[in-house]
């Protein structure tokens, strides 16, 4: 399998990269980890005329806390998320999700920015970002702008990024005390796209009352889905089995999965309920731990 020919550029700075995007417009594609794009090119589903390799641009792969915000550079590899001490301390969910993304070699290449910018509801980070209420930073000719995660995904392989913009950073609010997060997906085998996946972040106050709930779903909807009714069902409540069951039920009703070899719609809806329930329990467990 061999891609069609293309022009390759490897700019050393963000400005250069943006200038190239302006120059080539819609015929250019950004290469970060490349593990979605290159297989598509090899299968000749995609034949972009220009590849802008942003891997040589420095400063896009840091993980750090800035005040009340966690900042993750868009070029941060999945493997670096997996092993980051900062994330282990504050966001257990990254340990959950990275282990389930593809495989170790792919995680050495794949980037969090690429995972989001691909605009595929089957990817795992979109749901996690929804749960964590992240903001995506896009940098273009006019500088950087912030895009709330709920406004980022527009359609299949479609995001709010303009053709001359590059996703440069992900910003996540630092969790309040009493916060826990968890992610799991059902997969047919290691590295598969999710049959269904659920990401949950919860904050519980001293009385066990839920003061924040973020719930995102993977691969059960045309777009990455925020389970809004589920979140609302938890807020202000102590998380009894009944409350959790209600939240799980809403998620299974509100998603819109497609049948495929992984299962039919009924199964996927049921799995959404199971996963949301389990991840609420797991996140709540971590919140009080």
């Amino acid at each position: 399998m061999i891609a069609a020919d293309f022009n390759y550029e490897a700019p050393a700075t963000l400005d250069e990269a943006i200038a190239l995007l302006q120059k080539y417009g819609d015929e250019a594609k950004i290469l970060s980890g490349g593990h979605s794009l290159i297989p598509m090119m090899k299968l000749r589903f995609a034949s972009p005329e220009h590849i802008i390799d942003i891997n040589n641009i420095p400063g896009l792969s840091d993980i750090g806390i800035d005040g009340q915000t966690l900042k993750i550079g868009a070029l941060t590899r999945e493997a670096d998320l997996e092993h980051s001490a900062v994330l282990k301390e504050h966001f257990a969910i990254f340990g959950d999700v990275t282990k389930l993304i593809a495989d170790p070699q792919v995680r050495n290449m794949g980037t969090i920015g690429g995972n989001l910018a691909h605009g595929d509801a089957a990817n795992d980070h979109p749901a996690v970002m929804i749960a964590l209420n992240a903001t995506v930073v896009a940098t273009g000719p006019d500088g950087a702008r912030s895009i709330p995660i709920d406004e980022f995904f527009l359609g299949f392989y479609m995001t709010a990024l303009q053709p001359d913009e590059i996703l440069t950073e992900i910003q996540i609010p630092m969790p309040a005390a009493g916060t826990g997060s968890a992610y799991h997906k059902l997969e047919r085998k290691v590295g598969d796209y999710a049959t269904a996946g659920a990401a949950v972040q919860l904050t519980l106050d001293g009385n066990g009352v839920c003061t924040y709930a973020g719930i995102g779903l993977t691969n059960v909807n045309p777009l990455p889905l925020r389970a809004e009714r589920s979140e609302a069902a938890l807020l202000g409540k102590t998380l009894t089995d009944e409350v959790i069951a209600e939240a799980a039920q809403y998620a299974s009703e509100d998603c819109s999965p497609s049948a495929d070899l992984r299962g039919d719609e009924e199964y996927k809806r049921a799995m959404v309920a199971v996963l949301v329930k389990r991840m609420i329990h797991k996140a709540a467990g971590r919140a009080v731990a």
Partner: protein
Amino acid sequence: MTTNLTKTFEVEQPIDLVWATLTDPTKIVDCVPGASLTEQVDADNYKGYVGLKFGPVKAGYDGLVTFVQRDAENKKMTLKGLGLDSKGKGSAEMLMNATLTEVDGKTNVVATMDITITGMLAQFGARLINDVSNQVFNQFVSNFKEKLAKTTDGTAAETTAEGETEESNSGIGGFLKKLF
């Protein structure tokens, strides 16, 4: 592989206008993302092209659209579209049935579509067909409503198939749209 979609939507305009627009290929074509008409074969058959782009993926289809049924009295239509991938990698077929009913001066549209994809996209893109079809259909509905709104506003631009762009940035999935 075949995907079946059923959509019901309401249009603010009177049924006769909706019917006239929906059954006129030259009017409807620019509601279909990325579509253009290239030739009218006869009263019921039209040739066209649909160019689609979603993310890094581009596809082009040369298609033939046939009005199998245009029952003005009962406001029922059946449309068949057959598209061939312009690179020879497969084909797409769609059969659409639409029924219009009048509700308080507005028009209710019930449409069912059977979309059948053959070839490379069915092999590798099965995961997307349903989502993409839905997305494209929703886009069509929104374009259609917008067009009708403009028509009644009197602000509608005269549209001709020839003037339309061959590709759309917004549409995806493809093949199905050629049928309009």
